[in-house]
């Protein structure tokens, strides 16, 4: 189950999609919108994706997990659009007979999502906004107005 959606992520549905009687272990990762980074208080986030390339890259990660751990009970759901603090942006669920493989595959998948999937996060904070991953582009206006990109 590979999903990119503007809707709220339903952890239970995603988890149920990987459960099977032969699986003794399910490892689930929830990525949530934090209220702060190292530098500042965050008000909300916005996610944008390049589709369908992002979908294809997620499917590639599922293939890698299948090849490396023999695990096919695997799900990723990524949220797009506007997220408030506490909202889930990412759910990864991995089930396998034993827990070691499920932990490894889950951590691996998240690392890969942050490497190869064309999805971008914009943080909105008091007085500005910034596309994360390209912090040199931070556009904080001193007058407190929200920067709307551009030069």
């Amino acid at each position, binding site marked *: 189950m590979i999903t990119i959606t503007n809707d709220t992520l339903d952890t239970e549905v995603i988890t149920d999609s990987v459960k099977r009687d032969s699986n003794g272990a399910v490892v689930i990762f929830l990525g949530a919108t934090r209220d702060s980074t190292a530098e500042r208080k965050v008000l909300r986030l916005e996610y944008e994706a390049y589709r369908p*390339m992002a979908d294809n890259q997620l499917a590639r990660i599922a293939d890698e997990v299948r090849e490396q751990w023999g695990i096919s009970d695997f799900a990723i759901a990524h949220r797009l659009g506007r997220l408030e603090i506490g909202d889930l942006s990412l759910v990864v669920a991995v089930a396998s007979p034993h827990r070691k493989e499920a932990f490894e595959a889950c951590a691996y998948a998240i690392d890969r999502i942050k*490497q190869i999937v064309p999805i971008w996060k914009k943080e909105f904070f008091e007085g500005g906004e910034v596309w994360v991953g*390209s912090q040199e582009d931070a556009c904080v206006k001193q007058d407190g107005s929200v920067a709307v990109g551009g030069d």
Partner: protein
Amino acid sequence: MGYGGGVRLIVRVKLFASYKEKAGRADIKMSLSDGARVADAASELLRLHPSITEDASRLTIAVNEEYQEHDYPLSDNDEVAFIPPVSGG
């Protein structure tokens, strides 16, 4: 190949996130010389929109939704996406 000003190819450039905001647009029809490679599209993008970044050689690019190196040869009508540092998760 011998045609006056040279054969041109047109690629469909796509911009996202910070690049899109700096360029002020998401799509560009870009005309390149025949035999152009990814590096040529990157140089042309920075000529059009120098504020995107300083070093064209460090841009990450996908052609038809697959990551490609800068020496990858382009074809007419290719979709050339400039991928800012990703931050999903």
